[in-house]
């Protein structure tokens, strides 16, 4: 097999990935020298916040440089940084940008900055008692974990070596666990035994995703040993390879389709299922989604933002990058199942949304619903469908952070998210009501806003899939349009409309911190709704050729 050499062309990505870690170092340094200078908590908190903000801002700027630089060469592999890391196992440090990840990297930089802004100290009243506002508790630790999390996410998207990918993948887990567990909701004192007395949601998140990781690890190792010889960054020949691009090359040449079966089952199918479950948990896909509502309900606002805006995307990205690129034959085999599961996610979660009274839970389930579009579109193997899936990820990556910020705004003020307990809030909080309306409309796929572009592309793409059953699947899942509109409008109805509930006369409208976090996203939502081509241009060549090459394999379906 002929292997193209991917030589190092730029260190920009490495800087992007590890800039947050530099921030972590600075924060730890400030803590270390705190006793020397006799700094108070205020000083270290300020340093930590400043460092966090600066690091995310630098990442954002670098990402803009990346995006601008990449816009000239869409579809190509660029900004490669490549060298051998652990020679014994043929593990390399290999990061690069291609059509699949560029948009997600930009999204990560943006949402990271937004979430950081949302982590700045909240201007409102400090809550008395033992559970002060998360933005004022153990700030250096929070910021350090936040930045580690950002590094993990960026690395996950950038990595082109499977092992490196896995390292970053796991790097995301632990900070998330602590951020949810420590800075999230206080420990529950009521409910079933397994909920009480511990960070139930954080543990659930951690264990659940760890199960997926374990499956992924196994699949990765099996894939590694099934891979053929390849070359390393320095040109030496390796017996096996972790290089994702080589793996994809082998997979598309049918290497894994013909590998020795495992326990009597076709090799590529077993690997596909292992990887898919690992990623589907992150997506999350019905029926593996129940960690998400709990995690969101417990997580502090910026962490919800990152969780919904970025972490879920790693799942979708993984499916595109690994399942579909490396194992096209198994992807063909599983396409209908994936699409059906996606459609179930869409409709089922939408119905569940209707019955929610907790605003955050509602939004969390709506995330499940919208991420179903990603699965549906990706599984169609059409140009439109796959591009649509990617665009849904981007759009959802912008809209769902808005939604969670919105939930945070009201929770910070009212200390409740019970939709039914509000009423007529639009009287008192007109600006908040307006931005909520915009976000809800964007999320329910109002044409002219970002959500619609992705959804219609997914529908168009999925409907055109070669398998006839896709038409039924699309017909069913399109019904979510109605349900989605119902639950969002009903939520607006219960929260903002009607007679003003005098109980909330103490509330006040948004402050500048919240505006800084929300307005850029709102503007982006509108702009992408009408002018999505710049974003689509970033990845449409890659996904288009991917869809074409998978479709060209002309393999039998399920």
């Amino acid at each position, binding site marked *: 097999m002929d292997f193209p050499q991917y030589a190092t062309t730029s260190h920009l990505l490495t800087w992007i990935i590890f800039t947050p870690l530099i921030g972590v170092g600075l924060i730890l340094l400030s803590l270390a020298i705190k006793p020397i200078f006799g700094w108070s*908590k205020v000083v270290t908190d300020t340093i930590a916040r400043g460092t966090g903000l600066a690091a995310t801002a630098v990442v954002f700027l670098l990402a803009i440089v990346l995006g601008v630089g990449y816009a000239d060469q869409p579809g190509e592999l660029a900004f490669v940084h490549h060298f051998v890391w652990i020679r014994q196992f043929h593990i390399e440090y290999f990061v690069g940008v291609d059509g699949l990840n560029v948009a997600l990297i930009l999204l990560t930089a943006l949402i990271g900055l937004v979430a950081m802004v949302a982590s700045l100290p909240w201007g409102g*009243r*400090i809550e008395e008692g033992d559970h002060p506002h998360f933005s*004022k508790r153990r700030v250096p630790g929070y910021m350090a974990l936040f930045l580690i999390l950002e590094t993990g996410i960026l690395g996950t998207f950038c990595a082109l070596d499977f092992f490196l990918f896995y390292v970053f993948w796991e790097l995301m887990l632990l900070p998330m666990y602590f951020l949810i567990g420590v800075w999230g909701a206080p420990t529950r004192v009521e409910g079933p035994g397994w909920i009480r007395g511990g960070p139930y949601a954080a543990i659930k998140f951690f264990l659940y995703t760890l199960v997926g990781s374990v499956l992924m690890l196994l699949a990765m190792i099996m894939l590694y040993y099934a891979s053929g010889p390849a070359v390393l960054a320095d040109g030496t020949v390796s017996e096996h390879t972790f290089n994702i691009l080589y793996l994809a090359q082998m997979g598309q040449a049918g290497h894994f389709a013909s590998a020795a079966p495992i326990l009597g089952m076709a090799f590529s199918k077993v690997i596909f299922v292992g990887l898919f479950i690992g990623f589907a948990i992150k997506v999350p896909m019905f029926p593996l989604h129940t960690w998400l509502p709990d995690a969101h309900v417990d997580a502090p606002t910026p962490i919800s933002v990152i969780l919904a805006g970025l972490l879920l995307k790693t799942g979708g990205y993984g499916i595109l990058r690994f399942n579909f690129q490396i194992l096209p034959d198994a992807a063909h085999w599983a396409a209908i199942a994936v699409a059906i599961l996606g459609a179930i996610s869409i409709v089922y979660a939408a119905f569940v949304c209707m019955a929610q009274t907790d605003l955050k839970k509602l939004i969390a389930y709506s995330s499940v619903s919208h991420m179903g579009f990603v699965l549906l579109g990706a599984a169609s193997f059409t140009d439109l469908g796959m591009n649509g899936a990617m665009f849904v990820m981007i759009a959802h990556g912008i809209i769902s952070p808005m939604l969670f910020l919105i939930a945070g705004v009201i929770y910070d003020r009212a200390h409740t998210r019970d939709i039914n307990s509000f009423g007529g809030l639009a009287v008192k909080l007109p600006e908040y009501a307006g931005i909520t309306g915009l976000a809800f409309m964007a999320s329910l796929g109002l044409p002219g806003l970002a959500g619609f572009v992705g959804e219609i592309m997914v529908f168009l793409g999925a409907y055109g899939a070669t398998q006839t059953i896709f038409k039924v699947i699309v017909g069913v899942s399109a019904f979510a349009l109605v349900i989605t509109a119902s639950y969002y409008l009903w939520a607006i109805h219960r929260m903002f409309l009607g007679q003003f509930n005098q109980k909330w006369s103490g509330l*006040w409208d948004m*402050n500048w911190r919240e505006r800084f976090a929300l307005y850029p996203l709102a503007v982006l939502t509108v702009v992408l709704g009408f002018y999505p081509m710049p974003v689509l241009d970033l990845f449409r060549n890659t996904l288009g050729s991917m869809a074409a090459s998978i479709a060209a394999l002309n393999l039998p379906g399920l």
Partner: protein
Amino acid sequence: MQVQVIGAIVFWALAILTVAGAALVAFSRNIVHSAFGLLAAFFGVAGLFVFLSADFVGMVQLLVYVGGVVVLFLFAVMLTGRIEQVEISNLSRGPLPALAVLIGTVAVLAVVAFQTPWGPSGDMAAEPTTAAIGNALLSQYLLPFEIASVLLVAALIGSVLLASRRKEDELEDQATAEATDQPGDPPAAGPGGEP
């Protein structure tokens, strides 16, 4: 012949000196006598070393044991008891079992020494070994040598520390955990925030 006879005489003399010194150590009721017996035994052993053409080891034996260790013992004896108190080294347990052990051990070892065919006598030349030992210590045995020196330093420090009189009341460790942070900054007033 002559030399051999003289050698034998010297050997036996040294052997008797050694064994007698050891016996004195073992059986004397006075610990000071024991110390002097020890001195004799060490001296005898040193002579035996010389006789075994290990002149350097013999000199070291002389310097370290006779010159150092025995003096140390004498100091210890003097510091820990009164010399007049000869009963200080009373037999604590009946000597008979110990004697039995003594005889048994010696008997077994003697049988072994006599019955084992030790092979031909070594033909090591009776020449000074100092140079060879020096070479060996700085080449083949360099590491043990260094470790030994470290050990000696450690022993030195340790014994000084143990033997020196300790201050009765050391100051309490003042390194306590740094004073905990001030709880929170003053509450910022939120826009329109009223209770």
